[in-house]
C-alpha cells in the first residue's frame, strides 16, 4: 500500500535543521517518526515536497542520507520511497535528496 506523506501537511510547513537537539521538526525527527514508522510496517511512501517555503539542506540530508547511514540500502529506499512534487520549483530539492542518498552510500562504502 502506498502512503502519501505531504511534508507540509503531515509533518511541518517549517522543517528545521539536522538534529532533534537543535529544535523542532528536524530531519532526524522526520526520519525517525515518519519514515521509520512506515518503512517498519512495510509501507511504500510517496513523499510530496510541495507547500514548504524552502528546505534547509541539513534537514534533507539527515532525513534521507540518514536512512543510508542506518543501513537501509539505497535501492530499497528508492523502491519504497518516491519523492514527488507538483510544482517545478521543488525539483531542486528532489535532486538534492538523490545527491544525498548517493553521497551517503559512497561515504558508507569508503568507511
Amino acid at each position, binding site marked *: 500500500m502506498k502512503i502519501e506523506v505531504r511534508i507540509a501537511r503531515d509533518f511541518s510547513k517549517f522543517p*528545521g*535543521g*539536522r*538534529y532533534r537537539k*537543535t*529544535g523542532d521538526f*528536524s*530531519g532526524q525527527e522526520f526520519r525517525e517518526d515518519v519514515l521509520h514508522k512506515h518503512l517498519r510496517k512495510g509501507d511504500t511512501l510517496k513523499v510530496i515536497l510541495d507547500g514548504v*517555503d*524552502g*528546505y*534547509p*539542506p*541539513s*534537514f534533507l*540530508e539527515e532525513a534521507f542520507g540518514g536512512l543510508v547511514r542506518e543501513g537501509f540500502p539505497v535501492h530499497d529506499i528508492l523502491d519504497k520511497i518516491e519523492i514527488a512534487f507538483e*510544482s*517545478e*520549483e521543488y*525539483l*531542486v530539492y528532489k*535532486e*538534492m535528496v538523490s*545527491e544525498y542518498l548517493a553521497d551517503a552510500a559512497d561515504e558508507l562504502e569508503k568507511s
Partner: protein
Amino acid sequence: MTFLSALLGAFFAHFVAKYVDARFLAANQKEAQIDSYVEEICTATDRVRELSFEYFSCSGQDLGKREFVVAAEITGTMHYVNLLVTDLFLHPSAKSHNQAFKNSRDEIRSLMQLTANEDGASSERESQPARLSSIAKEAFALKKGIRSRRHSMKRALFL
C-alpha cells in the same frame, strides 16, 4: 470602384499598423517583465550573500537569538530565488527553456548548500570565514549565469 479599393486599402493599412503596434507593445511588456524577474533574482541573490556573510563570519554563540532568524531567512530567500528562476524559464506564457532551467538549478543547489550550515542552525556552530569566498563566487556565478541565459532567450516578439 477605385474609391472602394482605396477605402479598403486604407482600412487594411490602418488595421495592419494597429496590429503591428499591438504586437510591439505586448512584446515590450513581456520583455520588461522578464527583465524585472532577472533583476529581482539578482537582488535576492545579493541578499542571500549578505546574510550568509553575516552568518558565517560569526559563531552561533556570537549571533545569539539571530542564529535561527538569519538561517531561516537564508533558506526562505534561496527558495524565493528558486521560485523566480522556475517562473523565468518555465513560465506558461513563454517557451520552456529546460536547459537554462537545469543549469540555473545546478547553480542554485550549489549556493543553497554553501549558504547552509551542515548541521543547520545551532548555538554551538563555529564561525567559518574561509567559506565566504566560495559563497561570493557561487552567488556571482548564479547572477552571471541568469543574465547570460536571459540574453539567449528568444525575444518575445518572435514567440
